[in-house]
């Protein structure tokens, strides 16, 4: 560090000036909080100054709807064709004509699909993956979730290619035109990923009608960002020499892209595809609740009727589907071409694919004659619903008091006080503190951004709900971080523990967010405590993973250097490992916060009173303005948290000289 000599003199002055500024700011805010009477407009946003953004959006949507319905309905009709085709193929079968003499073509046989999944597993990952894939599919069939699962699968099958193609295109544009990337694509991706999914379901419903198509388009928006990012990353990561090579053999731009860059970036692209599939599943589950049908709808129905067993079963079917899709697509991403002999015919080159097609065709033909092939026979269907119900009943009977006490204490002494504190917090004070933090961490640009975004929440009259969201999200994120970092540290110290923990993390991460709510609702009923616990479970994984990785990636030489300098294990941890892993841990925290935020919104379904609730009300009323405004507020909270955390990570990293 060349600045060492200057900083010696400069530092004390700087520290004291910033300390003074912080003390002053906190004092002002504290006075405002204690004595709201002196400036009520700064504590509670004046209701006559609320900017009617939601009305504007509603008016705009009405105008779009009035003038562009021909276009949007046209799109609906076009997209509906492949979608209906996939639904017919997988779930419903075809029916031509009417009445008794209609020609009915069967859907693919469930036995054939199970076999095809097993073959895919075998082709990509060998016997174990084949067993896993077949097992999960058979589970879905035997436990009576087949029809819903196939509906979900059909929606995924159509929305994933759509996402991948559009994502690739956008990624290529972003790679070619960096200014376009910075100015338009990156902010758009940020918004798409932080905006709660429900919020954009509303305009989709308005524009594209109450059909599976709007669910699918919402899915496309939600699931596309990773593909765009993966494409940009894949293209950027192609070694410089390969790029030069493309130039030197005289490729045209197009040839270089299609024949050199994209194939070279295949592994990274496939990671993107895997993420698209998982996000699409997540979103299909959510959007199926608004009428598209499928697994999510079953869960919701069961939960509403408090049929815990059925809910759990449908939830596990989602888990099974998620695991199958994740493992298969990951294995496919790892696939590399191996030696093949030239001049083989199709069957020899792709034996598994041929076999799968043959099995599907054969079993489907058989299903014309044998009903057992067409749908799962009732005789072999099973149900664990009574069992689940018995378990929950047993827990509730024996531990009701303990659980209830835990819940009440948490609510009374932890959650409610924090909630009251934040809801009463003067909005102007929050804007001031956030802006100050932004300025300190990065500079005027970040300060302006976070100030505007925070002020938006107040100016739209959503301040109290925003604070309610912040409180639940914050508490959950802090708890997730505490447990997550502790588990991550433990995992980094013991290979055995890591080997035990990491598969659990993998599975937790593949589960659609909705699955976390079900078991918690059973034990804690609806309310803030349930929301918090489900959120902690959902958001804990990045904290564990990044902490573990951060500590493990510290170069061996540094650990050895510390050992030979005589560090005790304690010193090693506090003075070497933790500081060096801190930037990585911060990255994990960043993700934990964003995941917590997205989960909190979904938890509105079980009765929290925050921005999520606002979105749900808007969804029920099909009020696009109200929904989108709340959606923007949520997105802005997410972006403010993300930017501040990222800026502090950057500062940390540059202080450690890691960048």
């Amino acid at each position: 560090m060349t600045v060492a000599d200057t900083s010696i003199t400069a530092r004390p002055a700087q520290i004291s000036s910033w300390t003074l500024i912080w003390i002053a700011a906190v004092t002002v805010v504290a006075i405002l909080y204690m004595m709201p009477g002196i400036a009520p407009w700064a504590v509670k946003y004046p209701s006559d100054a609320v900017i009617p953004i939601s009305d504007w959006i509603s008016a705009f949507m009405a105008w779009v709807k009035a003038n562009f319905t021909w276009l949007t309905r046209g799109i609906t009709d076009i997209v509906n064709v492949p979608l209906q085709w996939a639904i017919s193929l997988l779930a419903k079968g075809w029916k031509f004509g009417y009445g008794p003499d209609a020609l009915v073509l069967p859907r693919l046989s469930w036995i054939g699909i199970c076999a095809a999944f097993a073959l895919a597993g075998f082709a990509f990952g060998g016997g174990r993956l084949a067993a896993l894939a077949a097992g999960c599919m058979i589970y879905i069939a035997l436990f009576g979730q087949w029809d819903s699962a196939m509906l979900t699968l059909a929606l995924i099958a159509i929305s994933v290619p759509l996402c991948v193609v559009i994502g690739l295109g956008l990624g290529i544009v972003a790679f070619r035109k960096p200014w376009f990337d910075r100015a338009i694509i990156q902010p758009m991706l940020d918004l798409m990923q932080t905006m709660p999914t429900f919020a954009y379901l509303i305009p989709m419903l308005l524009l594209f009608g109450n059909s599976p198509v709007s669910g699918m388009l919402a899915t496309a928006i939600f699931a596309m960002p990773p593909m765009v990012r993966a494409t940009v990353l894949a293209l950027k990561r192609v070694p410089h020499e390969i790029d030069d090579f493309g130039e030197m053999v005289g490729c045209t731009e197009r040839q270089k892209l299609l024949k050199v860059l994209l194939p070279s970036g295949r592994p990274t692209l496939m990671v993107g595809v895997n993420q698209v599939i998982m996000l699409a599943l997540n979103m299909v589950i959510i959007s199926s609740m608004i009428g598209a049908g499928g697994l999510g709808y079953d869960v919701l129905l069961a939960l509403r009727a408090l049929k815990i067993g059925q809910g759990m079963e449908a939830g596990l079917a989602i888990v099974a589907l998620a695991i199958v899709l994740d493992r298969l697509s990951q294995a496919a991403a790892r696939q590399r071409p191996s030696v093949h002999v030239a001049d083989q015919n199709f069957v020899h080159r792709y034996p598994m694919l041929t076999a799968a097609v043959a099995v599907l065709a054969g079993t489907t033909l058989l299903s014309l004659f044998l009903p057992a092939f067409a749908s799962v026979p009732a005789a072999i269907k099973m149900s664990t619903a009574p069992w689940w119900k018995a378990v929950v009943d047993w827990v509730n009977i024996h531990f009701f008091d303990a659980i209830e006490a835990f819940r009440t204490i948490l609510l009374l002494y932890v959650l409610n006080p924090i909630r009251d504190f934040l809801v009463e917090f003067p909005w102007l004070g929050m804007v001031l503190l956030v802006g100050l933090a932004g300025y300190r961490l990065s500079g005027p640009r970040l300060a302006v951004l976070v100030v505007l975004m925070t002020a938006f929440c107040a100016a739209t009259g959503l301040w109290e709900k925003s604070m309610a969201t912040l409180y639940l999200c914050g508490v959950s994120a802090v708890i997730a971080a505490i447990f997550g970092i502790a588990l991550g540290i433990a995992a980094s110290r013991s290979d055995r523990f890591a080997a035990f923990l990491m598969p659990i993390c993998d599975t937790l991460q593949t589960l659609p967010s909705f699955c976390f709510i079900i078991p918690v609702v059973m034990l804690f009923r609806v309310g803030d405590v349930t929301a918090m616990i489900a959120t902690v479970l959902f958001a804990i994984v990045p904290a564990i993973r990044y902490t573990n990785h951060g500590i493990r990636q510290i170069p061996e030489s540094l650990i050895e250097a510390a050992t030979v300098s005589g560090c005790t294990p304690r010193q090693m941890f506090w003075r070497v490992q933790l500081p060096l892993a801190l930037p990585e841990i911060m990255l994990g925290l960043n993700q934990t916060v964003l995941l917590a935020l997205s989960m909190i919104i979904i938890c509105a379904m079980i009765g929290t009173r925050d921005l999520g609730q606002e979105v749900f009300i808007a969804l029920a009323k099909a009020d696009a303005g109200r929904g989108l405004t709340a959606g923007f507020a949520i997105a802005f909270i997410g972006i403010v948290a993300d930017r501040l955390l990222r800026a502090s990570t950057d500062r940390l990293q540059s202080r450690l000289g890691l960048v």
Partner: protein
Amino acid sequence: MNDQAPMRKEAELTEDDRPVKLRCKNVWKVFGAGAAKFLADRAAVVTSENLSEAKLVGAVRNASIEVRRGEIFIVMGLSGSGKSTLVRCLSRLIEPTWGSVELDGMDLLKAKPDELIEIRRHRMGMVFQHFALLPHLTVLENIAFPLSVQGVDRKTREARARKVIELVGLNGREQFYPRELSGGQQQRVGIARSLCVEPEIWFLDEPFSALDPLIRREMQTELLRLQSVLKKTIVFITHDFDEAIRLADRIAIMKDGEIIQTGTPEELVLHPATDYVAEFTRDVQRAKVMSAARLMQPVSPSADYGGTVQATDKVSTFSARIVGVRKNFLVTGADGKPLGEVTPDAVIDLLADRDLTREERI
């Protein structure tokens, strides 16, 4: 350049009056805002102080080289000396900020994009340090790739590829994928691929630097063998002076973006232009770079010769023999005409590094 005089003499002795294939004159590559204007305003009369004042970085500064047809021309420099940037300027992978590059007298910098594509497709080949093989293609497909880009049909291009595979000794590996090959084999694929279009000028960018020392030697031998068959014009980049000595017809040594000396290995060893060059040449075995011509004296009238060597033969190729028979060797030109003779003492002096007096004798 005080080495002009001996260089002329050398040129007379060796075969070199071949036409210039690739010429670059006063090439600059300067990074930073407004670099082009900065150089244009000063007509490229710029010192390194000027550049740093203007906050510009000169990666290549005023480089001029002439590569003759069929020659192995080596650009040698340590990392950061600008050698890779220079070779990328020659192939226009990087646009030079100033200067001219001519291929067969045609200004390469004026070529339009589609002309450039044509030139690269048919007249240039390049081999890369880290091979730059496409991971999703087999060896055969990789090698045929440049032809497939040109739109050559599958049969023809695979037939051509198989021929080059034969040439570099990769038979039987056609259907392997790059990751299934060792480093040396991968670079053979890289070499075969660049040769598949039968380029006139062949750029090799540190082709052997990523390989183990033993494999590196083997590949150098292989390159010399290929060159004896193919007689390409080669621009070869390396940071390894021993490699340069071993392969080069001529070497240009770069430091901080400038070419500080150009000459045959012999000239560099005998007349290093600067201390920097001398630093490299100090440990070079002279017998390996010096030719018989450099050591010979006029033919004595009544000599009884123990053998005959060509003027261009390196001393190391016959030192053991001449010391063994302890008789003078006759030195002849390429046409067999006697030019002079070499004494065993001269060779021993050279081997023992006592050769400085010999120089004066010539």
